[in-house]
């Protein structure tokens, strides 16, 4: 394996982790969506680079799907949605940037330690890619846990999916079917959650999930 190719792959995967960390401290929804679109673009680049390096032409298709669906269609749709909901100027107060960033850094360190220890005998190329992918997954989960707004949780979920795609393309010979299904699952999740958001909105006048807890007669 060419050293330059390895470096570029690592550079792209590392950027993906970096952008995931950037997602953590976006407290305005439009900015969050923009960063998410940026993450998707980097993912598309990374997948395309893998396609070039591995000589697997079907991965180009995955990259195109990622670019079109995750970087363009979903962010644009979500932008329109938050505008129609009238929450595009709201500032999410629940997140506490300092501790969240520290937790995120801890997660990245943890995943690097875990993966490097567990996959001692694995292919070098896949190994560090997997570490980055696990970081992205964990950061996405962290976002789902720390955010209250339904839209931010959707973004967290899709960021998690991005991590999965990174892992899937990093490993050689992953069948194309898997990526298709992953892409579709994200699309379906997006549609379902979109419809769900409007439902919540209609009923409670807010997309703050805490309101649903109040409705269940519980208080935090």
């Amino acid at each position, binding site marked *: 394996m060419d050293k330059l190719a390895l470096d570029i792959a690592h550079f792209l995967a590392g950027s993906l982790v970096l952008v995931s960390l950037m997602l953590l401290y976006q407290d305005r929804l439009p900015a969050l969506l923009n960063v998410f679109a940026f993450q998707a673009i980097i993912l598309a680049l990374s997948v395309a680079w893998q396609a070039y390096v591995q000589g697997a032409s079907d991965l180009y298709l995955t990259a195109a799907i990622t670019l079109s669906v995750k970087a363009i269609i979903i962010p644009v749709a979500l932008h329109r949605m938050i505008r129609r909901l009238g929450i595009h100027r709201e500032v999410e107060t629940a997140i506490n940037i300092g501790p969240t960033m520290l937790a995120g850094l801890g*997660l990245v360190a*943890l995943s690097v330690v*875990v993966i490097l*220890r567990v996959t001692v005998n694995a292919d070098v190329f896949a190994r560090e890619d997997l570490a980055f992918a696990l970081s992205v997954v964990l950061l996405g*989960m962290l976002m789902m846990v720390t955010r*209250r707004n339904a839209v931010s949780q959707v973004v967290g979920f899709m960021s998690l999916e991005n991590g999965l795609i990174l892992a899937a393309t990093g490993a050689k010979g992953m069948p194309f079917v898997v990526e298709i299904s992953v892409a579709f699952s994200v699309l379906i999740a997006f549609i379902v959650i979109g419809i769900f958001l409007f439902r919540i909105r209609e009923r409670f006048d807010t997309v703050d999930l805490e309101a649903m807890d109040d409705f269940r007669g519980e208080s935090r």
Partner: protein
Amino acid sequence: MTNWAPLDVLLWCILAHLVTSGVAIPIGRVSWARWPVYGASLLISGVACAYGLMHLIAQSSVAWETVLPLGLPWIGAHFRLDALSAFFLVVINLGGVAASLYGLGYGRHESAPERVLPFFPMFLAGMNLVLLAADAFTFLLSWESMSLASWALVMTHHQEEGNRKAGYVYIAMASFGTLALLLAFGLMAGPDGGYAFATMRADGAPSGLAGLVLGLALLGTGSKAGLVPLHVWLPLAHPAAPSHVSALMSGVMTKVAIYGFIRLAFDLLGPISWWWAVPVLIVGAVTAVLGVLSALMQNDIKRVLAYSTIENIGLIFVALGLALAFQGNGMTAAAAVAVTAALFHVLNHSLFKSLLFFGAGAVLTATGERAMENLGGLLNRMPTTGLLFLVGSVAISALPPLNGFASEWLMLQAILLSPELPQWALKLLIPAVGAMLALAAALAAACFVRAFGISFLGRPRSAAASNAHEVDRISIAAMSILAVLCLLAGIFPAIIIDAVAPAVQTIIGTRMPVQTDIAWLSIVPIAESRSSYNGLLVFIFIAASASLAVFAIHWLASAKLRRAPAWDCGFPDGSPATQYTADSFAQPLRRVLGGFAFRVHEEIHVPLPGNGSPARLIVTVHDLIWEWLYEPLIRLVNVLAERLNHLQFLTIRRYLSLVFGELIILLLILASWT
């Protein structure tokens, strides 16, 4: 047909049982449904019994094996038929034949046949399957199907509060037992997943874990067999089922549990260490004594029988413990005597306990009563049932010339060999266990004198008892077959011992000396100079002396026979309540032994002179094991359930956080592992 492998036939039998069970579902409510269902079970059990017997008698060391592509794909379902399985197949299917035959008659009175008929063949199939299973997965699956089918049968009359409680306790204990077995097999299989018995047999227990596996096996099979303190479900569940099912559960299912223990401890666990015997002996002895003491305190006749089952299981485990002790020291001849005694008693107990449960079922049919305080005088009204119940009682009390004596005598012979053991711990323990065994045997005799005397002798204590009638002929036929088998096994023990020998050979590696060659059908377990027993001689002596006595009385007695009312101490028309009752019969033993075993408390209220109200005697009996072991456990479970209940009502975000936290913890463990 002769070129069929016995194992294939047996598997087909199990399938036939399952098909019968399926057929029974749609026709369960029809009044004639018991004929095809019990008829089919009778036939199938008969075939299975015959094939088991054929394999046993052939004395071949050949084990039939087969693997069916069922169950987990990379394991498959292994089945194996060796002499040990064959012996237990005979015991179980003999019980199945008897119970099916009895069910043909008894089933007429069943109020909810649609709840019994589908599960009865399924129960038989489950038990047969356990005996043939040769990998952990199949074994546990059949074990569970046996438990579930019997649970459904216990719940037949679920309208009664007591039966629901019995079912609940039973299913909880059954799950616990299966969990223990699951862990035992998991440890045996090791990280490589060698779930087939053949692999386990080759590898033995992982080093250092043999004791743990033995403990788990004792817990798992003991909870099904009814070892103290895991016996609490047994006296609740066995009487709750219809009587022929009670007979199957008490006489037969407990034997499947014993098979499981033998298979694990003697066959799969590898080389036996002498100290394994210590827990088995202690638990067995305590079970025997506590079981029979509890039986003496009971008033419900089916409960007496259930507690007596616990006692007999204790005896069998004592014999198995002896075998472990001898085998662990390389004294294979002595071990063979102990195992033969255990297996002989397995057969005997299945015979007479089924007989007694059938008798109790006949009493229940005739009177609608299970409480002995409401029975009495049944011998005049149901003479045949009474006689057969008497045979069962004599057999279970271990009186010669019946079969109970032969097997318990063999057990004591094995105990008398214990001074030859090198370990002082065993030298001191085994005589103490022997004393407990003798105590249990004596108490068992008292218990069945009480059970028979109060129920069948004296005068009827209730209108139901005085209006009782003899039961139908099919029920009596089923009981008679078992009674005759009890007698035959007692008179000709040598034949049984030789028939059991291949099973003993497979687990111990040696067998008792051939008995059928010895003159006059005596049995000589070790040497002529030590001890011998001749059931036939004892039988002839008893028969001759009894007929001589009868003849002498009738010959020599005065011919001037006059029938008159018994002298009534000046109280004409004495109430039947002035007879000995079940409680008053048990009182001396209750006072002597109940104090520490049950914390019995008697309170006597005598009214002052001039006050016409009746005197009262209030007896409180505590079940200490339930109060000290199970009640704290139940409280603990309730408190934990209360705490964990909060987890049901969290927000989505908290659930996500829990999952996330769990993942992080697992990753941290993984990171710090290597």
